[in-house]
Every structure is written in structure tokens, then in C-alpha cells.
């Protein structure tokens, strides 16, 4: 069972590594933001699997912390964009 958990987490890590290609290529800023979403969700899944692997339930607290603070990043991103757009509108 433990070997299976490790295979699953390695697979999820490889998913993150594949997602990096999109950060590298992705033509708009929004594409890059998207991949942070991918990292967040996949990281959550890795934490859950590791919690089962090490039988350590406190890892769930780490996952919740990541979760509840992810929303902060999203909202402050929104602010950055708003500012950028105002700047762009002012320039034109």
C-alpha cells in the first residue's frame, strides 16, 4: 500500500512539472495564473496522499492552511489587474 501511495504522489509531482511548461509558454498572464491554480490543487492532493502514507493526520492542517490562504492571493491578484488596466487605459 505504501508503495502505491508513493507512486501516486510521484505521478502528481510529475503533473506539476508538466504544468510548468504552460508557465513557460503560456501567451497571456492569465495562463500563468491558471497554472498556480493547478499547483495549488495538485499540491493539496499530494498532501492528502502523504497524510495517508505517513499516517500523520496533522498534515491535513497544512492543507487547510494552504487552502484558506489561497483565496487571499486570488483577491489580491484581482487588485493588481485592476490597477494594470487603469494604467493601460490612462496611457491610451
Amino acid at each position, binding site marked *: 500500500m505504501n508503495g502505491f501511495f508513493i507512486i501516486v504522489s510521484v505521478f502528481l509531482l510529475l*503533473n506539476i512539472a508538466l504544468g510548468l511548461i504552460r508557465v513557460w509558454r503560456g501567451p497571456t498572464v492569465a*495562463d500563468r495564473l*491558471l497554472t498556480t491554480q493547478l499547483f495549488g490543487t495538485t499540491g493539496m492532493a499530494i498532501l492528502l*496522499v502523504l497524510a495517508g502514507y505517513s499516517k500523520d493526520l496533522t498534515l491535513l492542517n497544512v492543507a487547510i492552511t494552504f487552502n484558506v490562504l489561497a483565496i487571499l492571493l486570488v483577491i489580491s491578484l484581482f487588485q493588481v489587474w485592476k490597477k494594470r488596466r487603469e494604467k493601460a487605459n490612462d496611457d491610451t
Partner: protein
Amino acid sequence: MTIHELITVILLVVGCFFFLAGTLGVLRFPDLFSRLHALTKADNLGLGFIAAGMAVYIASPWAALKIFFIWLFTLLASSTSCYLIARFQKEQEQTKNGKEGE
């Protein structure tokens, strides 16, 4: 291998399949909106399957509650950010400023 472990294995494999689908969608789909669709839907479904699998494996009600909340918060955060990204991109395209060199 007990029945619990069998259920866990099946759920985790299904979850991994959805994660793979989401990542491939992000890599292969042609425009931002379809990528958003692939990512936020498939990945959250995959996370849901993995969460269910781990809840079955750990088999403690307190942990299951926490895992459920993890999934719920991720759903909330990711749907909010999906909405914001899509709205931002739409407004950008309307002002004809879509490329990065804004």
C-alpha cells in the same frame, strides 16, 4: 488487501486519471477559456476522488470531516479564481489589450 484498501486504490487511480486529464487539457487546449474549463473542472474532480479515497483509507470521522472541508475550500477558491481569471481576460479582450505587453 482488505476491501477498504481496494476502494482506496480504485478511487486514487480514478483521481489520478482526472488530474492527468486536467494537465493535458492545460497543455493542449487552444485558448484560455477552454484551458480554464479543463483545469478547474477536471482537477477539482480529481481532488474530490483522491479526498474520498484518503477518507476511506484513514477511516476516522474527524479526519473525514477535515478532508471534506479541504475539498470544499479548494472548490470555493478555485471557482472564485476561475471566475476572476475569465472575467479579467474578457475585459482585456474587450479593450484589445490581450497580449502580455499590456
